[in-house]
């Protein structure tokens, strides 16, 4: 998956799965107009609140996934201390 043509100046090259970082903002905000139409409580919480909390947790999940994928793709690149 790594293309060696890129210069070595950027320690982390762009990879297709990096688009994953856009999923939480788009999902969370894109859903706001729709989540906002639900006026009933879901699991005892207002739906908009629940929607946002779920997406905040998913945002953390996406970052964990990104980190794991980056680590697998180039273990040497991420631990340069």
């Amino acid at each position, binding site marked *: 998956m790594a293309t060696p043509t890129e210069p070595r100046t950027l*320690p982390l090259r762009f990879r297709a799965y*990096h688009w994953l*970082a856009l999923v939480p903002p788009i999902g*969370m905000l894109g859903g706001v*107009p729709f989540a906002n139409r639900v006026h009933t*409580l879901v699991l005892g919480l207002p739906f*908009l609140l629940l929607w946002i909390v779920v997406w905040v947790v998913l945002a*953390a999940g996406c970052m964990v996934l990104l980190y794991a994928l*980056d680590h697998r793709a180039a273990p040497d690149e991420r631990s*340069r201390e």
Partner: protein
Amino acid sequence: MNAALAIIALFFVVAVALALLARRGHEMSLEQWSLGGRGFGAIFVFLLMAGEIYTTFTFLGGSGWAYGRGAPALYILCYAAVAYCMSYFLLPAIWRFARERRLVSQADFFVEKYESRALGVLVAAVSVAALVPYLVLQLKGLGIIVSEASYGSVRPAAAVWAGAIGLIVYVVISGVRGSAWTAALKDIMIFGVAVGIGIYLPLHYYGSYGEMFARIEAAKPGFFTLPDRGSSPAWFISTVLLSGLGFYMWPQYFASVYTAKSEDVFRKNAMVLPLYQLVVLFVFFTGFAAVLVVPGLTGTDADLSLLRISRETFSAPMLGLIGAAGLLTALVPGSMILISAATILAQNVFRPLTKGMNDRQVSVLARALVPAIALVAVLLTLRGGSAIVNLLLMGYNLVTQLFPAVILSLGRRRVATAAGAFAGIVAGEATVAYISFSGTSLASLLPGAPEAVKDLNVGIVALIVNVAVFALVTLATRGRTVSRPAGDIVAMPAADVDR
């Protein structure tokens, strides 16, 4: 002295002592003082970055918005999540450049990227214009918290003075290490106290969360959804995006990126910070619980909801702990703001003015500026009229204007010129100032537009003006920069860097 005040005073003394201890074993060069010697690992950087989530604005304002407005308060939870997703890529890129060039302030980043000291001075001016009101906000919050939590036995003014003097002492002596150590104490308190009362109050007054939401919804139908006009979904989304972009443009958080010892620190933090900021949820719960328990707080008094319901509910020692947590939410960001403002003034304003200052002199000057900046902030806190409120509202929009110039400088090839960045920032800031002081909104600019457009955060206009001017001036000046490698029209000689 009542028990609550005694506890607050105790925590204040512990916080200052902790900050002073943080200095042990470190020579205080400028790099040590404002950046902790660039040696912070994931935990210290986490503590500094979590500082932004938990300022007095979150503590008082977050609960106040939840109490007074309901659903629109949720934007606070969203914009940080957006910023963290961006931070995974943005912060390592900033860090690499900062480390390579040994940058100390946010303005340095612009000086080096665009090879223009003039741009550095401009960014420094913007920084200070945003930072001083932000410090005033922290001090105002501190005064309110201590005064309320001590049952009014300490006047806000006395609390502000005491807080400011404590801040000056520990900032001058320990710098950012002091901030990191007190941040550890703060986070323990926030976890124990803010989360604790957020869980307890709804259960205590309503029996369950579901019951609380149901009863508030019955009393105030539509409280938990965004309205169709005003704070509508269009407002919500545009505000979250603008605040998310501006998040790391605050000079004190931008500079906290420099403190890390490796870029992996930021990727680790990007995984943890979204979960950590869920503590804000419990501040909302406290604000929601207060809706039916302490009704009738309107306008800015809504910000008192957390403290008022706590006073109604808890004994003096517990109120003292809440007050102490609130005090720390003012001290930690306050200290970072002071360090940042002083570093920027010394490094990016005074240093270019007086030729031949060495690092040691800049360091001494920065620390000497701390009391001066703190005093200005105290006076504005105690005497400030409505102008300062305007500045506060402008703060986020002011720093967001720096975003295009930062993002466009990160690519491998330079696409923008210093003149473009300079003109874009000036145009953006001028628009922000005009909009804020004239009270312009998109509804007044475009009366015929659809409701969704009218509700957009007006800060978007400033950002569009900024980018448009940036692009035009860059196109006009681009050829010249290429043919004159030493610098362009606003640049000083590139060889002036004596670091």
